[in-house]
């Protein structure tokens, strides 16, 4: 499972913050600020992953046999969260993305972000990224 490498790296980075929720939030926002953003032309309703309070725009493309994701959000923390998911998923094959088990949020003490799906749509983001990978798997199968 190649996505594990990125997840383990994230867990290591967050270990330094020692579970301090405020520092974690700041760090997540910082990651969001550094993320390569989606071009504004793609920030349209069709690309929205709907959560309750924050908007997330997600766009993917297939390069060779690898999926690349780009995203943006109107809230800082969600932007940071989606940047973490992109680090985990982007640049992998559809097969790896579909079979990936996302375990880093719990390990960095952020399971509450997953538990409150309604407030930020974290699970919805994972689902959307996987759905797009499934579509690319079909594309690749048809090519072969």
């Amino acid at each position: 499972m190649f996505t594990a490498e990125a997840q383990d790296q994230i867990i290591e980075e967050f270990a330094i913050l020692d579970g301090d929720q405020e520092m974690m939030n700041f760090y997540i926002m910082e990651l969001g600020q550094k993320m390569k953003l989606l071009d504004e032309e793609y920030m349209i309703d069709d690309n929205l992953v709907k959560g309750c309070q924050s908007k997330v725009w997600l766009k993917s493309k297939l390069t060779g046999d690898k999926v690349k994701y780009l995203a943006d959000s109107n809230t800082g923390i969600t932007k940071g969260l989606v940047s973490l998911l992109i680090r985990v998923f982007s640049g992998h094959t559809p097969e790896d993305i579909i079979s990936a088990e996302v375990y880093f949020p719990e390990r960095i003490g952020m399971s509450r972000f997953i538990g409150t799906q309604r407030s930020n749509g974290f699970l919805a983001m994972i689902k959307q990224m996987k759905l797009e990978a499934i579509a690319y798997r079909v594309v690749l199968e048809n090519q072969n």
Partner: protein
Amino acid sequence: MDLKGLRSQFPTLREEVNGKPLVYFDNAATTQKPYAVLKALEEYYHHKNANIHRGIHTLAEKATAAFEETRKRVKSFINSAEVEEIIFTKGTTESINLVASSYGRKFLQPGDEVIISTMEHHSNIVPWQIICEEKGAILKVIPVNNNGELLLEEYGKILSEKTKIVSVVYASNSLGTINPVKTIIKKAQEYNAVVLLDGAQATAHLDIDVQDLDADFYALSAHKMYGPTGVGVLYGKRELLEEMPPYQGGGEMIKDVSFEKTTYNDIPYKFEAGTPNIADVVGFKYAMDFVDEIGKSNIHAHEMAVYDYAMEKMEEIPGFQPVGIADKKVSVLSFLIDGIHPFDIGQMLDARGVAVRTGHHCTQPLMDRYGIEGTARASFSLYNTKDEVDVMVDGLKRIVNFIK
């Protein structure tokens, strides 16, 4: 007010969140519960639990007495003329639905009009949309100004002979505005329209006298005034309630049932089908006792002192923008900070143990009116302190420093 003594009566206030003492500023959503209420709930289930009204055994009588005791207490709490005018519901939402569904179904005709306002909670919008659609009636809306106050002049313009129902919020959950409901009622009466007041927010802060207000209906929730969740009240004038058809069918609401014809019970039981939320109704009495012991005017004065202090301190935050600065307010502070999404404000404050609400607060049309998606909202209660405000303001300053 002995703030320390008061706080000690609320066990939840001793909780820690993310290793920090809880600062609970989400009181407009629900308040914490004092020991008196918690003990009453335990006492009920330990010593009185039985189904009410129909039982002849001792326990059933004890449970019924405790349940009806709360009804009498509500009567004195909001000063209704009669105890039969107090109907127990699940909450304000159900109370409004009851009126829309029962009164609306019987009395609305095609072309009739129902008036609400821009600052209504979805609970005071959707039930009217449903019944208006069903009856071919028209929903009219009183607009608000930039400060968050109703435009009474506009209200006067949309009132007419066609107006059958006016349903407005007493105190806004998003803005804190206290509406001039007496004036609203007087004007409606000129056209023989009935008025429902959504008292979900107001009841915890203001002395309520339904006779003095001359409201036709008044809806409230126990959990927003230190009582248990799942209990609400619909007050209605006797003559209106008697004319209204039942809301739901079932046990308790009947006089006689046969397959040919069922006759209905008298008010209030006509509107209380099924086993009610007995324990929580019993507990609610102790919340009213608790509030009256301190006194609403003392509570409101304290809360507004905390609110004023917060407004003053928040001015130190660059980009702070209050939403809702009406002349008369309850202690709801809705705000924005330039360049920071309310969701981020809420998450960051939570990390420091501060609970605020973020989003549209179930008032999307109001948010649309101001061209915003939502706000962060701190709502203060009798147990909140200025020190807690400092914790929030300090947290907000850290966020602003980080972002800018």
